[in-house]
């Protein structure tokens, strides 16, 4: 409603209205506004919520989700989808955990996890681009296949007793700021830059916006799409080591259901599932929003069992809201 008013006044009142309208059309705007309202609401409702400590703990707890969501954001911007990240995270964490308990150290387990992630992502990308299999089918199949690989490697055993030096990525602090938070913000800065200011970043938008047109003007469509899947694998590997650091052990069901939270974060943040529209900020905002809601649900006493229902409702609200916002603001050409 307020959007409709802003739109009509924008037509009449010139530059202020136009700027307002442009701001309203930014992908992440509704999610940011919603997040701000939510933070105020929870703070009024519960006294402990808006403390720096609690905010940092929310941000740290969404680090795994946020890292993966910002990468999947690129896949979705390119007009594809990846729902294999839950099992992929479990596999990377398992490999990283095994390497860590066998050899110790930080870099070797991290390298192992990232390489495994990149290989899994490359397989996704290969099947989608060269194999011409739709991404939803490839990654749905991989979601189940990779979970099987975890069982093949471990025989159903859990990995525990991760040494302290490996857990640095999850538990360490630098100048009083937690390492997961630093990694999250660093990747946000990096991906924002790459997405806005590099040729590959622009190609992702072009391919997702109109693949036929991108091909006709000679952009490397397949290479661009392939690399988005590899990026997801690399970030999943990184996120897996943050996860391992925080939990100190890996169960065979690690990461189950994470893929849904990731997709939810991206679309709730405001990146269009149709591809071509969105931003890294949107994915990060979505992840923080989900973290806030799940955290807030616990604080106000909603049983955790409703978590999936809330997540599903949020996805539907977000995608419906995206369509309605664009209809109201007349952005659809």
């Amino acid at each position: 409603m307020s959007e409709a008013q802003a739109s009509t006044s924008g037509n009449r009142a010139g530059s202020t209205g136009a700027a307002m309208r442009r701001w309203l059309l930014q992908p992440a705007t509704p999610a940011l506004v919603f997040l701000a309202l939510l933070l105020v609401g929870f703070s009024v409702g519960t006294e402990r919520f808006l403390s720096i400590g609690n905010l940092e703990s929310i941000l740290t707890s969404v680090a795994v989700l946020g890292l993966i969501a910002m990468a999947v954001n690129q896949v979705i911007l390119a007009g594809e989808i990846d729902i294999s990240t839950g099992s992929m995270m479990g596999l990377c964490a398992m490999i990283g955990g095994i390497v860590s308990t066998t050899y110790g150290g930080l870099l070797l387990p991290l390298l192992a996890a990232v390489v495994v992630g990149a290989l899994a992502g490359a397989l996704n990308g290969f099947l989608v681009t060269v194999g011409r299999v739709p991404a939803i089918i490839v990654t749905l199949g991989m979601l189940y296949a990779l979970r099987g690989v975890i069982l093949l490697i471990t025989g159903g055993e859990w990995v525990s007793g991760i040494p302290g030096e490996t857990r640095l990525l999850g538990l360490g602090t630098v100048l009083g700021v937690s390492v997961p938070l630093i990694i999250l913000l660093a990747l946000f800065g990096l991906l924002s830059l790459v997405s806005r200011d590099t040729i590959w970043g622009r190609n992702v938008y072009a391919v997702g916006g109109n693949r036929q047109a991108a091909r006709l003007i000679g952009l490397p469509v397949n290479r661009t799409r392939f690399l988005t899947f590899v990026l997801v694998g690399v970030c999943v590997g990184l996120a897996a080591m943050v996860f391992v650091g925080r939990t100190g052990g890996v169960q065979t069901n690690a990461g189950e259901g994470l893929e849904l939270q990731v997709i939810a974060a991206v679309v709730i943040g405001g990146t269009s599932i149709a591809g071509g529209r969105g931003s890294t900020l949107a994915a990060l905002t979505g992840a923080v929003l989900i973290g806030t809601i799940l955290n807030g649900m616990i604080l106000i006493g909603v049983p955790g069992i409703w978590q999936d229902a809330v997540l599903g409702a949020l996805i539907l609200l977000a995608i419906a809201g995206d369509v309605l916002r664009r209809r109201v603001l007349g952005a659809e050409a």
Partner: protein
Amino acid sequence: MIASVITSLKGYLDNAKVSRELVLFAVLIMVTAVMASLSPYFLTLTNLLNTSRFFAEVGLIALGMTLIIITAGIDLSVGSALALVSVAVGFSFAAGLPLPLAILFGVFVGLAAGAFNSLFITQLELHPLVVTLGTLALFRGVAFGLSDADAVSDFPAWFDYFGQFFIGPIPGQLIVFIIAVVVVWLILARTRFGRYVYAIGNNEEAARFSGVPIRRVKAALYTGTGFLVALAAIIYTSRVSTARADAGTGLELDAIAAVVLGGASIYGGKGTIAGTVLGLLIIATLRNGLVLAGVSNTWQLFMLGVLLVAAVFFNEFFRKEE
């Protein structure tokens, strides 16, 4: 060398008059032979008829899924919807609703779930993939929330009739499934509605300009699939005598795998009921054989996942360039 082999293989398959159904039938025989060699119990009439008790549930859903995939759509929420219906029947019964009414309520919930999907897909013109990904989480979450992760299993004896009755040696749900196959086949192959389904999948824009009522067809498809899900849910709940929120986890994978294995193109416009039934038989044979060979459920899901990707890969790879 390899490239030339692939090209000639492609050319052969394009020109060959071998129908896809015949190839699938050969695969089915091969799978059956392998499974029979793994377990002596596999190739007995008792076991084969028993297998049909399991695949009837997936089969009912796969029938609806076939039509949806022919329109270039997809429904990922079927497993969760099955759980929701199961919980609706079980818990409304536990709350004191007479069982016949509880079953009717379950059917209503299934229809409502399908209609809910179609509302987003037709009115907001959102891609079925994201909508049903959302309802995949929503339906199961609601099922878990309402049931408080508890189970209901004190059904009266007559309820077992739906999932556990036999006519001679033939399980009842096999008959239900065969009737559903005939009905859906007639709709797809012999009615105007069936032509609309193919028309939408081939070229939605062209279909729109030819006056095909696209929204109504899609609404009917997703809601109808909701009805088939409800039917499957009632049979399932009766067969295991338990209503639980974790029923049907991963069921969408079985259903979609059966449909694409049967030759339906995920890009729409192609697919048959005969193909789906054969795809279903192959998957059911694989699953049953693996169970008899003592392979765990996670491994079965692994093989299904690989099979699904491989089936679509060959479907699209050997399709003529557009």
